[in-house]
């Protein structure tokens, strides 16, 4: 379903859970960088409330505003380098952290998440509520396998997200 189709739905906020878009980010061909993709697959297999959409977004880059605009709540799942032990997971809002973007936009064909969020912000298209679930990666190298620490952390991450959206 396209974003526009969902955005066009009228939802009674008082009687239904907040419409939520959950995006799994990262490159599934680059080891733990693709953990967002795994998380999306795990979430899609679970019972989700009405009004919740789960999608793998890969590396949306400049098009992040196209993905997230019109949603009142967006949850992003990504590998995040936080300087913690591999597999450590954290939930944070954009107000709680400073995302480190490349000062200049180096490889403009695939800007990072921080840059995509900055663009959405400049266009006033950030959702009211945006939450990032991050897991510290162990190995972000070519390959479709994710490391055991990260795989283990994903179970807890999926449970946390389900608790948050229900």
């Amino acid at each position, binding site marked *: 379903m396209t974003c526009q189709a969902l955005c066009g739905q009228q939802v009674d906020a008082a009687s239904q859970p907040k419409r939520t878009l959950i995006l799994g980010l990262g490159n599934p061909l680059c080891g733990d960088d693709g953990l967002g993709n795994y998380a999306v697959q795990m979430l899609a297999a679970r019972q989700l409330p009405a009004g919740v959409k789960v999608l793998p977004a890969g590396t949306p880059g400049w*098009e992040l*505003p196209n993905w997230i605009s019109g949603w009142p709540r967006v949850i992003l799942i990504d590998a995040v380098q936080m300087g913690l032990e591999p597999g450590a997971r954290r939930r944070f809002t954009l107000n709680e952290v400073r995302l480190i973007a490349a000062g200049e936009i180096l490889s*403009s*064909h695939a800007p990072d998440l921080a840059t995509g969020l900055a663009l959405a912000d400049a266009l006033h298209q950030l959702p009211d509520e945006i939450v990032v679930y991050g897991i510290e990666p162990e190995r972000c190298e070519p390959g479709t396998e994710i490391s055991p620490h990260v795989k283990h952390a994903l179970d807890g991450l999926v449970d946390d997200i389900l608790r948050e959206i229900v």
Partner: protein
Amino acid sequence: MNKRIDVHHVTRVEGHGNIVVEVADGKLKECRFDVTETPRFFEAMLLGRPYQEASHITSRICGICATGHATTSLRATEKALDVELSEQTRLLRKLTFHGEILDSHILHAYMLVAPDFLGVGSVIPLASSHPDIVLRALRMKKLSGDICAVVSGRHTHPIAMTVGGFTHFPERSALEDLRQRLIAARADVDETVSLFSSLTWPEFERDTEYVSLTKPDEYAFIDGEIITSEGAHLPVEAYLQLTNEHLVRHSTAKHTRHRRESYMVGALARFNNNSAQLHPRAKNAAAALGLKPKVTNPYLNTAAQVVEIVHCVEDSIEILERLIAHGLQAEAPAPPRRSSGEGVGACEVPRGTLFHHYAIGGDGKITSANCIIPTNQNLANLEADMRRLVPHILDKPEPAMQLDLEMLVRAYDPCISCSVHVLKLDPKRGGGR
């Protein structure tokens, strides 16, 4: 007068490249575009793999030209194995190819080039100063990606395209929806032409050899023959006579040359060689942008991309009308008529002519592979432009010189990561030669 410009890592291009210019006593001593990325060995990855996997592997060479690589790869395989495509397959391939051309050109013109002309450092401040422009770009990009998603199953890295045809076919309603959205997008396309017509392009002329594919009956993107502005006409199988790849010390990407010291591929070369075949609305756009072949100002490559945006939108509408009128058949992929062979695929991807050349053995596995990427073919020409440009801008302060040079690099829309093939060894350290 001594000046040194050393732009380590040019921004707003894909990949890593450095501009090095050194002027001593008013004379140009050094003028290079260094490519420092490591090679990725995609051709080696193909060896021993079943031919059915080749388009999916090579589509990962690029996240922008994924459909271009997949299509070129499929054409190489289909020629090697003598696969005859149906008209429906040709139309669907062309439609998704247009989607990618649009996506890439919109990205380049709006996100990478426009900030230079509108006096901002990147698209983020542009979104604050000119939100209408950035929102338009995002709208057009979404439509372009949706064309690819509807036809080939994904915005990037197509999954429904296979040797001989498609494994999945869009619903009629999805085609109708795309047609209506493209017609509605004409307003955005007109605004795009208007915006880029209002820019003052840097004045700089240097004639070179312009190289593209050409076809008798349409503005060539998929298949055709090689044509150059120096009068050469070659079948794509003779691509090595065109490219003449050679090594230069400062680049992990090879350089190419044909009848001059360098040649240019891309939207400007296509426009110069094939503009008579553009859609009438695209011809009008070219007139509005002040383009008339032969255009020898490389900065106008972006303007030629805008012309192609118009062409691809109009041609996509026509293709969709034909597909809707004929009705889509869920046809099986056309079968190979040979079990082994050798073939060259060639396409005009956003940045220029792309070649894939495979040999496939009797067991269906790839025994040799060669991919020649547009950015490679443009590197020598870019350096020749830099050498011509620098003496004309020597009076400018260094930051202004640097901006002129960076804008020149960006005009070529280089995709540096894709271009890198050479592994450099230092013979003194490594003991090799």
